């Protein structure tokens, strides 16, 4: 991916110090039956960067996020056109198995959704189904590392065999993050991960996201502009299925190029 290729996309500017483009989307359209939910989106998601998708509700930001690991495949009426490249490979290629793709592009959801199993089994679930480890000791170590990375180890280490549903909301969400980390995906998609949490739990998760950036590429959908400002380096603004503007977070919040973005940022609508 050379710089010259991207010059015609004015909104895309490489972040200094960042390596290169992890996911590259071109002319993505999403249809639910007859309705077009995403109307031609071009965006690049850079490695080891947190990219925030913001916009009024119903603007298609979550839908777009779910395209990035083909979660929309589970909906019968949903149809995706255009091109989404992960490290240069088309993820909608016939040969790509969504199951494999999702091991590389993990996802954390709006509502914490731990499985009705023990904390340990929740985290071990991914490595087990993908057959990533061959013995119990390795699995133990992966569970521990994941929980540590998700900043949950200290709270959970004494109750690994207790059901994950017994944790508090914020802990549950961190458990879900740990669960995602355990298969070590390259990209983590987060769909409003804090919307169901209280401010303290939110703060912990936001801190966590910032730490995770070191090892993962993160795309986060959020309805809170403050959150986008706090955690992300790049921000994309969606409006009615269109990508209006994408750029460095500072620039979007201080000097938006587009009137719609400015109206949204300044709270004219939401």
């Amino acid at each position, binding site marked *: 991916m050379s710089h010259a290729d991207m010059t015609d996309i004015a909104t895309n500017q490489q972040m200094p110090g960042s390596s290169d483009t992890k996911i590259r989307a071109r002319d993505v359209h999403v249809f639910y039956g007859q309705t077009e939910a995403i109307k031609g989106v071009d965006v690049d998601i850079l490695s080891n960067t947190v990219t925030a998708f913001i916009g009024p509700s119903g603007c298609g930001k979550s839908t777009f996020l779910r395209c990035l690991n083909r979660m929309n495949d589970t909906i019968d009426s949903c149809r995706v056109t255009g091109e989404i490249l992960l490290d240069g490979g088309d993820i909608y290629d016939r040969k790509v198995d969504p199951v494999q793709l999702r091991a590389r592009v993990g996802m954390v959801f709006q509502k914490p959704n731990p499985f009705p199993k023990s904390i340990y089994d929740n985290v071990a679930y991914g490595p087990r189904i993908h057959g990533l480890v061959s013995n119990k*000791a390795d699995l133990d*170590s992966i569970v521990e590392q994941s929980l540590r990375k998700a900043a949950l180890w200290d709270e959970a280490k004494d109750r690994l065999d207790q059901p994950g549903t017994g944790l508090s909301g914020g802990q549950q969400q961190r458990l879900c993050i740990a669960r995602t980390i355990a298969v070590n995906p390259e990209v983590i998609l987060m769909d409003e991960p804090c919307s169901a949490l209280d401010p303290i739990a939110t703060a912990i998760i936001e801190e966590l996201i910032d730490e995770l950036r070191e090892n993962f590429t993160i795309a986060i959908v959020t309805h809170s502009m403050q959150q986008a400002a706090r955690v992300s380096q790049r921000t994309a603004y969606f409006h009615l299925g269109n990508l209006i503007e994408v750029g460095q977070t500072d620039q979007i919040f201080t000097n938006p190029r587009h009137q719609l973005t400015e109206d949204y940022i300044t709270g004219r609508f939401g």
Partner: protein
Amino acid sequence: MVAIADLSAQHGSENSARKLKRRRMAQLRLQTYGIMAIGFAALALVTLMWTVVGNAFQAMSESYVTLEVPLDDPELVSGDAEALNRFNYDGLVKDVLKAEFPSASGRTQRRELYDLVSSGAQFELREAVLQDPSLAGQTVTVELLASDVADLYLKGSYGSLEARPHEGSLSIVPSEDGDTFQVTSTTPDFAEALAQAKLALLDQAAFQRNQARLQNRGVEVFGRQAEETADPDERKRLLAQVETRSAERDRLLDVADGLEARARQDGGAEALDTSAPSVLLRVGGGWLKMIEVNDNGGIAEPVVPVEPVESLPADAWGYFIHDLPEASRKVSDRQIVWIETLKERGQVDTVFNTRFFTAGDSREPELAGIWGAAVGSFWTMLVTFLLAFPIGVLAAIYLEEFAPKNRITDFVEVNINNLAAVPSIVFGLLGLAVFLGFFGVPRSSPLAGGIVLALMTLPTIIIASRAAIRAVPPSIRDAALGLGASKLQTSFHHVLPLAMPGILTGTIIGMAQALGETAPLIMIGMVAFIVDVPTGITDSATVLPVQVFRWSDFPERAFEARTAAAICMLLLFLVLMNALAVFLRKRFERRW
């Protein structure tokens, strides 16, 4: 120790691709199990429907035998209405049959002959005469209802008599004893009959071998026990058993060998008994039944008398084989000949069976109908509806609109849910003990049945009605209450009408369940044999599903078709009720 960061390397690796293949296979397996499960259910349903509809077909037609009946008995001619009523029509019908086939002699043959016509035919004849007394003195052409056996033969249930090709000229010579005839054809026309007889021998041989096998198993078991036992007396006893069994086995095997040898050899002659195919000959107006057969002929006995003939050309005689042995069918060779004769003379009619839909129950399959049961079902359902619907709706209104939230209400709810799952037979016992025993409701009556079914249906109706009432939005209630209506007025004037489609749908589904219910009604005596069509809710009655149960228990084969036809009627009513429920739901149900 594995570092998480290393795991990424595995994504997309060859190893992971191989694992993925296995995982996809597991998925495919699960999916296949699912398809197999659906397929099994579909297969069961199709087989079930096929059994029912396929069997029911036969009951849709009935056969009549047309005979000339002389109503010239002096008793009839001179008689008043009372004499017409009392006259022995049974004897008359039998006389007519005897006149039709005078060759039938002896008790057995006579009985076979009389069995061609239903025992109900005489009553129909009497009805006809009573309807029109002027018939007395005339000779009238009457269609007499055929018996179940004759009817089934005509429908091909007992196989059919098939004409066989033949070329030779036939000679029939009375044998010395005078009862039988020596039959000879100029060509080996009877080779086929002989071959069939030999096939029957092979069947018999196979049966003997199977018996021998069972005996042999005994030999093995007793032999082993004899070896194991320590007690000398016991051993002696066991060895004696082994002895007798092996002797019996060898005898059976010898018999089988003999049979097979006879079957294998060419030519020869075979006796045709009741377990062999029937071979019949038609010569002029008469019929012969072969009792021994060789390639060119054999020995035959007359069924309908024949005259001895010489060199009858091939086109002047008929040669028929019925490959179902006489012992395996209810209809005898003689009866077949009579029926075929009648058919040829155009005296047999098969018409649509209206009787089945208009008659009450009967012990004779050809007379039995479902009208009585259908009317019984109607009365029973009427009682059920009149009780269960109002009580169910009122209870639902109370529970949804008025009941305080307390333990008693909770208890009522738990109770209703549990009642919905109590086995139906227990409701039957309740009806037996409480309504028949304690309140003295008449036994076998639709009233008793209706009460029991109402109690059974009640939970279904209450649960459905509550759901429908709950679906009415509170704003409607607020609006009515705001205008000064009392809570009761609100419920009855506003909530209830809006909930009615849902309530009716639930009620119809509950009633459909009740319509198919059998066990509790058996408990309260609705299984009794009732010929009359009930005229009210206190008459003795039976209902469709119980009728199905009763008929399926009868040994006569013709009842099988009638059972299936009764099931078809029952299913038809169920389909209609469910269609009505679906219609109501589609047409009136509102989503708030």
